[in-house]
């Protein structure tokens, strides 16, 4: 169990779905997303506390990734509003959401395979005059910015242990290295909130520990993290707060120890049938 100042701020918060937080960074209201007759997401109210690691868990098909896509502007809901750091962002497009400081990674990593690891990093820098069409033709006007970006990119790559790979094509990296690159690349954007969609999926156990370390380091640098995860051990070890989704709804939230003991959560994961089985009765 981790104890951070941010987690301490959550100590007095009641563990019930939709509970208000003392210092929310992300506030979501009435979001629904249906595909034909299927309601994939139906979230009444949920808040994410600033400076914490918040885990979003739930069984397969609970709507976690859809919820992620909606919040980051990659999908549009039927109804709903949400605000980030006090600003309503529910009508913004994906790139505008990222520019506000809410940067996501993908469940199936989206590293730019044909580009070098360093170029992947440099792409993520914001406000680059060399990315304007006419500005691009005047290298003298953006070279210093490019050099500063490169220095920052190399420092970040060094932190995640990818510095020796900087000039390799990103397509040559292993699955775990891609996860690391995606996370480092997200940090190049200087996000306030890092949204990680299953950061541990397909990562070998040796790398898992280092990834966990990097995620906790993000919080300790003052960033907030919201991540989707299946592995309960991982959730237990690093998160300050856990939000549980099932069938599109938030069914429980609270500190990790609390939610794993919550019968609603156990039901959602295992189904209600197990209660009938006397073998499983506590």
């Amino acid at each position, binding site marked *: 169990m981790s104890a951070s100042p941010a987690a301490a701020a959550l100590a007095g918060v009641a563990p019930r779905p939709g509970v208000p937080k003392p210092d929310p960074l992300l506030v979501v209201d009435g979001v629904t997303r249906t595909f034909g007759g299927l309601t994939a997401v139906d979230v009444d109210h949920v808040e994410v506390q600033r400076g914490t690691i918040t885990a979003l868990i739930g069984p397969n098909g609970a709507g976690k990734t859809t919820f992620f896509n909606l919040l980051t502007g990659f999908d549009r809901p039927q109804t709903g509003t949400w605000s980030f750091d006090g600003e309503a962002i529910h009508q913004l497009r994906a790139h505008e959401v*990222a520019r506000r400081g809410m*940067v996501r990674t993908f469940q199936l990593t*989206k590293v730019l395979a044909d580009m070098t690891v360093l170029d992947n990093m440099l792409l993520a820098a914001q406000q680059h005059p060399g990315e*304007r069409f006419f*500005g691009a*033709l005047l290298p003298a006007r953006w070279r210093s910015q490019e050099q500063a970006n490169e220095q920052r990119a190399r420092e970040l790559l060094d932190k995640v242990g990818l510095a020796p790979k900087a000039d390799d094509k990103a397509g040559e990296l292993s699955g775990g290295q891609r996860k690391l690159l995606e996370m480092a690349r997200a940090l190049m954007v200087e996000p306030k909130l890092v949204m990680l969609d299953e950061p541990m999926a397909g990562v070998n156990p040796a790398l898992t520990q280092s990834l966990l370390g990097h995620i906790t380091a993000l919080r300790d640098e003052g960033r907030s993290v919201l991540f989707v995860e299946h592995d309960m051990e991982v959730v237990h070890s690093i998160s300050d707060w856990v939000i549980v989704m099932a069938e599109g709804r938030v069914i429980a939230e609270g500190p990790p120890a609390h939610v794993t003991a919550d019968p609603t959560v156990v039901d959602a994961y295992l189904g209600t049938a197990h209660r009938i089985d006397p073998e499983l009765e506590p």
Partner: protein
Amino acid sequence: MDLAQVLTDGLRAATGVPAIAYALAVIGLNVHFGYTGLFNIGQIGFLAAGAYGAGISANLWGWPFWAAIVAGVVCAVILGLLLGLPALRLRAEYLAIVTISASEIIRITVRSTSVESVTGGPSGIGRWASSFYRINPIPEGDYGFLGIAIDQRKAWVMLVGWSLVALAVLVTWLLVRSPWGRVLRSIRDDEDAARSLGKNVYVFKVQSLVYGGVLGALAGLLIAIDANYTTPGEYQTVFTFYMYVALILGGIGRILGPVVGAMLFWFLLQASDTLLRQLITDDSLLGGVIEQRDIGSVRLAFVGLGLMLLVIFRPQGLLGGRAPGKAR
């Protein structure tokens, strides 16, 4: 059989105005397809926009030559925006449908007799570029290189044409190696990744389409200036596919690929033409097998054969770009 003649004819075509125009248009296509992953199959429409934009403003409204050229380029920009603003919001396939349709709509419209007073209908617009030849600084006389004879008129068009190619290569090179070009490559690779990093993918795609379209317009202007005539027959859909052949021959996503590809395409086309003619008449080796009138089609089969061999043995093109299958 006179192989020297075959080589000379091939070389003349490889350095001539059609090859120059293809080089320009294919540099644009390479920005679209090679660097951004936009599948534009109506590049010829941009050539038509340039040529007709200039021809109409010079002929109908009596604009001076330089103003007509600017008008041609502006028409290509407008066409790029007109196609890109709606179609680039949608999935990639829509751009293909929209571009090929637009290029045909333009060709059929300008050919229509109902607008004959503006576009000249099927016979086109003549002699609007005469001013270009009045400012020719090259003294009258016969010029030549590598056994290819040209007059001062052709030398002037070729000089301007190859200068434009050099300029287009330089500007494109500056663009694609800049941070702007890096965003284009990221869009080609995975546009959702680019979005997640705060890039307005839509704006970059529109810029790419317009820039490549302007290069297409320059190609159209050059063809029209060379003939001092603009006719609808020069803007058939199939020419866009010849441009793709040139792009694949040279190497997709390589800065000089379009230039090498366009030269090679025209070399193959003309060399096989001359060779076939010789085989029919001089040696009567193919006499009775192929008629004179078939040569136009058979030489394309030769280019097709060349393309097949290339895709089998060197799929990345002569200059080692990306293989066609990987292009998007």
